């Protein structure tokens, strides 16, 4: 029955069945009066008390975890100091007993004994003066303030009061004032009661003060010698003691005894910085190097791992969080302080990314000392062509500047035209003017406009020459695809485009996500869009000689050979293991001979390549070069060189053929490419669209797309983009759950798989993410992530950014050029730097080690900057004899011609000067001519059989130079700096460890350097410096003189 009732009725039944209030048993006593609340109140009060105690605890300890850390630190650090104290003491004792120290101590004792009596006298005298001052000062200062108050009253009093006050003052001054002045009476001190007027008191006070000063001065003079000795002793200990002295250790112990538990804070109002990191990281700046083991596993107390960084960036100024991120002001918990919670926008950098912090101030540095990961990230960003699609401040600035300059030239031309018209009109109006004055005024106006036109012309000229330079500086990361028809086998293109990594795993070219039809369309477009011009046919060369050349001329500084683990060589440019499968021999020869040589020049104004027909239409021969770079169709410059950084190695045609023949042999025997017939107008149009869509023009020169914009996001401030603006798409929730919903996580996943955020999305092919896959490995992802994380809107004020002027800026700028052209693959610029060539197997052989390109450490000190500029422009140092090295003809590796712009050359020259701390500008010191006697002496030294210079140094005579391993002396005058040359011939081993140049040719005889290998009769009467004599001789060596010497 009950089961069939409807729910509402059931509910009502249930409700009614509940016990009613009035049904409860009625107590006898009035419940309100009789019920006691004592227990509830007692319990609540107790609870309140407990809560209150809890609040106190929370306030004092719960919210102050650093209190525990500090107590623990004091305990551990003291223990550590106690541990190292005896060791230090042991070491120090040994030093104290050493002879040098004993001698100093002896000296000190003597010096102190010498002055003991005098010092005692001074001390006694001073004590007397001090006592007198002690007695006088209170009386004097009290009266002085009383008198000054009265003086103030007089100054501000009304006329009638003034006289009265003045009298009062007189009286006050008169005194008398009683002073119990101590006076020395023979041996004892007697106290005399004396009376003074204020003037007398003042005089005495000043006299005593002066006396005190005189005495102190005398004491300092007296103590000078002992102080000096003490300092020497300290220096002696410091020089021989590694680390702290016992005194310092004791000092630290004392510091621990007086340690105050408190928030340790760095505050720099200029940076709006409040960092309390050291409230827990107490060992970070301690003078003792503290390791985790010293601190019994407490990582938090260890020293900063790079002390040098802290000396460069004083923590009192820079704090911690500007570099490391995190919430420097937070003290309540580790996660809060490290910023590892949802609402802190700048969490502590992870270990693998911590160099990101450097970028806030060091944006302008291409090569930052002590930041290898960041440098590698920048290098990847440049080398992999990220900047082709992504704008990024600092990269590709040449293109931007070129565009601006071109715009400027156009604007100037337009305003010049306008001005011309206005001048014409003004003159016409002047001609018709009613009065002479009016006409004069208008003529003057016209004239001033003519002047401004001249100014425009100069300006325009300046921009034009800058454009010429920029046309040389602008480079693209990928090859010029206009020449694809001459260069490549057509069948190879679709295979390559579909997956470049399959053909060449290490290639810079990334893999795009393309459909088969897209690949066909792009192949069709690239092929049909290419220049269809013949390349002269080349006879075959000698592959084995080519192999030799390839391995010795320096190609392998940039290019590698061999696949996978067998790859040998640089990674800056392509791995050439399978190059024979793709290229045409004829084109390759031409390329190796001079990679900068274009089929057709490109005109940025007409936005197309200039063909032979264009030249013919103006009746001009089809010739173009860096000197002859005017467009036949108008007055502007052409792009006459390929935009590759690959330099011209100045090989002869024959050598180029040999190398090309060798490269053509680099192929897989079973390489097979299906035919690729794709030729079709419709396909071409589709391919053009796709090529632009995927941004191929970012890295390649493609006809019609030369001036197209970058098609990806600007990464300059990517690291500080709000996280909501980074599109995690459908992975948002997964990212949150797996704890990578942050910038680091976004970058890492994107770099590992650029299509990752398309996962699960339903999109049209053209709507999909376009970023291609670069095949980055874990390490590279960390490097790039570090770079991107550091690319932030800096919170540090401009003035702290590293934007130096003068030499440091020259160094900064120079590195950009050095890294752009990969100079560091062959040359050393800094101690400790390894070049690619140094690590090649060939150069491990001691015979070949001498064949390494010269180290450039100290280059700025060595060479004359003017000569260096000339050399960089033309490393052959000749306009006719190009197939050689200008300086070190004996080297097989070739210093190539980079066709640097004047600006780049200047940057490099200044870079070297600045690296070697040379004063700029360089003024060569005058070198006095040798007289006949000196000449004879110098010749004798120069050709002395114990050190025959010309055996090793080249002379320009091919027969003789076969075995030479050093530069020609005829270069010296223009190339070297005399002071460096002198240092060099005296101590080559110090300047360049391991050099073939013998050391010890000269020895120091106390006043000058003399020839060390033999006693020469003829030098008996010569008092000058022998090394200096030789240098002077070298700087005036003429070819005739050298020939004469050779004859000997």
């Amino acid at each position, binding site marked *: 029955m009950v089961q069939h009732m409807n729910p509402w009725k059931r509910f009502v039944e249930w409700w009614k069945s509940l016990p009613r209030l009035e049904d409860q048993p009625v107590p006898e006593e009035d419940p309100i*009066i009789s019920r006691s609340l004592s227990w*509830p*109140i007692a319990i609540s009060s107790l609870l309140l008390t407990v809560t209150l105690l809890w*609040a106190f605890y929370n306030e004092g300890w719960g919210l102050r975890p650093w209190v525990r850390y500090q107590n623990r630190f004091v305990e551990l650090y003291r223990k550590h100091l106690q541990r190292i104290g005896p060791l230090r003491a042991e070491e120090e004792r040994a030093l104290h007993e050493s002879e040098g120290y004993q001698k100093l101590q002896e000296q000190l004792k003597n010096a102190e004994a010498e002055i003991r009596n005098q010092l005692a006298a001074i001390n006694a005298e001073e004590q007397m003066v001090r006592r007198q001052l002690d007695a006088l000062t209170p009386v004097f200062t009290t009266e002085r303030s009383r008198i000054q108050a009265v003086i103030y009253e007089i100054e501000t009093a009304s006329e009638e009061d003034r006289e009265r006050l003045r009298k009062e003052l007189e009286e006050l001054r008169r005194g008398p004032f009683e002073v119990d002045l101590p006076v020395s009476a023979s041996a004892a001190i007697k106290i005399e009661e004396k009376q003074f007027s204020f003037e007398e008191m003042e005089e005495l006070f000043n006299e005593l003060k002066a006396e005190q000063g005189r005495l102190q001065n005398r004491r300092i003079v007296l103590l000078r010698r002992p102080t000096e000795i003490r300092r020497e002793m300290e220096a002696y200990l410091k020089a021989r003691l590694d680390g702290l002295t016992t005194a310092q250790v004791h000092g630290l112990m004392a510091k621990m005894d007086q340690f105050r538990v408190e928030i340790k804070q760095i505050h720099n109002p200029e940076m709006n910085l409040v960092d309390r990191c050291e409230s827990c990281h107490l060992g970070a700046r301690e003078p003792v190097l503290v390791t985790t083991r010293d601190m019994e596993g407490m990582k938090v107390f260890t020293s900063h791992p790079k002390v040098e960084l802290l000396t460069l960036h004083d923590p009192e100024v820079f704090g911690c969080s500007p570099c490391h991120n995190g919430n420097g002001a937070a003290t309540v918990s580790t996660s809060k302080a490290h910023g590892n919670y949802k609402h802190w926008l700048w969490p502590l950098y992870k270990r693998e990314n911590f160099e990101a912090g450097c970028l806030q101030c060091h944006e302008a540095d291409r090569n930052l000392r002590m930041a290898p990961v960041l440098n590698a990230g920048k290098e990847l960003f440049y080398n992999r062509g990220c900047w082709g699609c992504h704008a990024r401040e600092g990269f590709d600035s040449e293109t931007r500047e070129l565009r601006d300059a071109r715009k400027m030239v156009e604007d100037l031309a337009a305003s010049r035209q306008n001005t011309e018209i206005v001048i014409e009109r003004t003159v016409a109006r002047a001609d018709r003017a009613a009065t002479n004055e009016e006409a004069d005024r208008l003529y003057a106006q016209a004239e001033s406009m003519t002047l401004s036109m001249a100014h425009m012309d100069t300006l325009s000229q300046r921009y034009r020459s800058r454009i010429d330079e920029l046309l040389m500086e602008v480079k693209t990361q990928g090859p010029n695809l206009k020449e694809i028809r001459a260069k490549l086998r057509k069948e190879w293109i679709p295979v390559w485009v579909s997956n470049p990594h399959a053909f060449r795993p290490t290639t810079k070219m990334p893999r795009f996500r393309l459909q088969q039809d897209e690949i066909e369309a792009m192949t069709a477009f690239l092929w049909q869009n290419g220049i269809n011009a013949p390349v002269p046919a080349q006879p075959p060369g000698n592959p084995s000689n080519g192999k030799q050349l390839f391995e010795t001329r320096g190609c392998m500084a940039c290019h590698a050979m061999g696949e996978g683990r067998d790859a040998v060589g640089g990674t800056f440019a392509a791995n050439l293991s399978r190059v024979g499968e793709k290229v045409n021999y004829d084109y390759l020869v031409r390329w190796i001979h001079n990679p900068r040589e274009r089929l057709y020049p490109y005109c940025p104004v007409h936005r197309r390549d200039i063909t032979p027909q264009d030249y013919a239409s103006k009746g001009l021969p089809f010739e173009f070069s860096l000197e002859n770079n005017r467009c036949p169709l108008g007055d502007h410059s052409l792009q006459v060189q390929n935009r590759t950084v690959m330099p011209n190695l100045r090989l002869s045609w024959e050598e180029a053929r040999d190398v090309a023949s060798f490269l053509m042999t680099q192929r897989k025997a079973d390489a097979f490419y299906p035919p690729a017939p794709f030729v079709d107008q419709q396909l071409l149009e589709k391919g053009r669209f796709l090529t632009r869509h995927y941004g191929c023009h970012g890295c390649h020169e493609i006809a019609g797309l030369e001036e197209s914009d970058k098609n990806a996001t600007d990464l300059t401030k990517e690291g500080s983009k*709000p996280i909501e603006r980074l599109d995690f798409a459908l992975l948002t929730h997964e990212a949150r759950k797996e704890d990578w919903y942050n910038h680091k996580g976004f970058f890492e996943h994107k770099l590992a798989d650029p299509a990752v955020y398309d996962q699960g999305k339903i999109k049209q092919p053209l709507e999909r993410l376009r970023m291609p896959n670069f095949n980055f490995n874990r390490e590279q992802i960390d490097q790039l992530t570090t770079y991107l994380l550091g690319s932030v809107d800096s919170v540090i004020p401009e003035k702290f950014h590293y934007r130096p002027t003068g030499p440091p800026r020259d160094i900064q700028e120079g590195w950009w050029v050095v890294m752009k052209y990969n100079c560091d693959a062959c040359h050393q610029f800094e101690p400790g730097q390894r070049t690619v060539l140094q690590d090649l197997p060939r150069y491990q052989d001691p015979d070949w080690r001498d064949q390494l390109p010269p180290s450039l450490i100290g280059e700025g000190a060595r060479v004359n900057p003017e000569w260096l500029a000339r050399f960089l422009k033309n490393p052959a140092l000749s306009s006719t004899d190009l197939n050689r090295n200008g300086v070190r003809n004996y080297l097989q590796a070739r210093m190539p011609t980079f066709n640097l712009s004047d600006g780049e050359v200047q940057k490099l020259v200044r870079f070297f000067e600045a690296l070697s701390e040379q004063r700029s500008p360089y003024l060569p010191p005058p070198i006095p001519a040798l007289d006949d006697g000196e000449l004879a002496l110098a010749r004798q030294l120069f050709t002395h059989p114990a050190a025959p210079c010309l055996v090793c140094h080249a002379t320009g005579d091919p027969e003789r130079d076969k075995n030479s391993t050093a530069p020609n002396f005829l270069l010296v005058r223009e190339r070297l700096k005399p002071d460096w040359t002198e240092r060099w011939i005296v101590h080559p081993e110090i300047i360049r460890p391991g050099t073939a140049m013998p050391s010890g040719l000269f020895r120091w005889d106390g006043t000058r350097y003399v020839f060390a290998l033999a006693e020469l009769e003829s030098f008996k009467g010569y008092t000058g410096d022998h090394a200096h004599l030789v240098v002077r001789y070298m700087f005036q060596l003429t070819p005739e003189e050298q020939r004469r010497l050779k004859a000997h």
Partner: protein
Amino acid sequence: MDWRQLWEIASAPDNIPIVALLFFVPFFFWYAFRQAFATDRLIRRLGGDPQLAKTHHRKIEPYREIWEPKLHVWPYLLRVEFLAALIMTVLLMVWSITLDAPLEEPANPNLTMNPAKAPWYFLGLQEMLVYFDPWIAGVVMPTLIILGLMAIPYADANPLGNGYYTFKQRKFAILSFCFGFLVLWLSMIFIGTFIRGPGWMWFWPGETWDHHRLVFEVNRNLNEILGIYSQPWVGLVGFVAVVIYFALFGWLIHKLVVWNDFNKKIYERMTLLQYLILQFFMLTMLALPVKIILRLLFRIKYVWVTPWFSI
């Protein structure tokens, strides 16, 4: 079911009061009504027993002759209040120790948070913005709510039910409160907290708040549904609709006011001003659920569109 997210919302320090509300409101609702019903039964008994009614009966408690008819505030009331104060202080202190103020990241004017939510006690107002234009929902309605609350004592013509819990004697007032506060105000706060996700979209509890979620939802004004696009007809249509609403619901409210004999008696005690005030505020209050239904079920954005305000 996205438990993680549900927990995140429920455990957010901002939302503690609302979660507490979910338990406290039903409890006190039950507690008050138990008391009120007991009183009502007592009233009935007293009505049937005039002798008993003459005694000084303490409202709900059973009658004992020896009990004092009246008790002093001190100590009998104050000691209870003191106990309550103690417990409240303990609660607040524990709360403040264990839950920190929910401080978030620095404000960025270029990037507002999504969903951007008001403090919990204002979420009802914010939810109202879905149904009315900002001028109505943000200014007019809140003002009317405050004025209406202030007007209650003056519009109330019912002399009974002061100082004791009763339902029978104040049915109209209590049901109005239950509807206006418990149903409208609290449920809107609940919706604002638990239901409204990114883009202020409707997510059922446990549905993942997805920023990329797309829903098809086209809201149109009444005049657009009727195919009227030109003034003055647009304004006129809305005006007529509003008038119809006032007439229809005014009549319905009147029916409630004179529902039974007791109500009629109260109605007779009312002045015209009191009655009009009552009608006006009741109509305004009822406009909200009506608009919610129109908006959520019939996808009507505004009924009355004018250049100055929209309803």
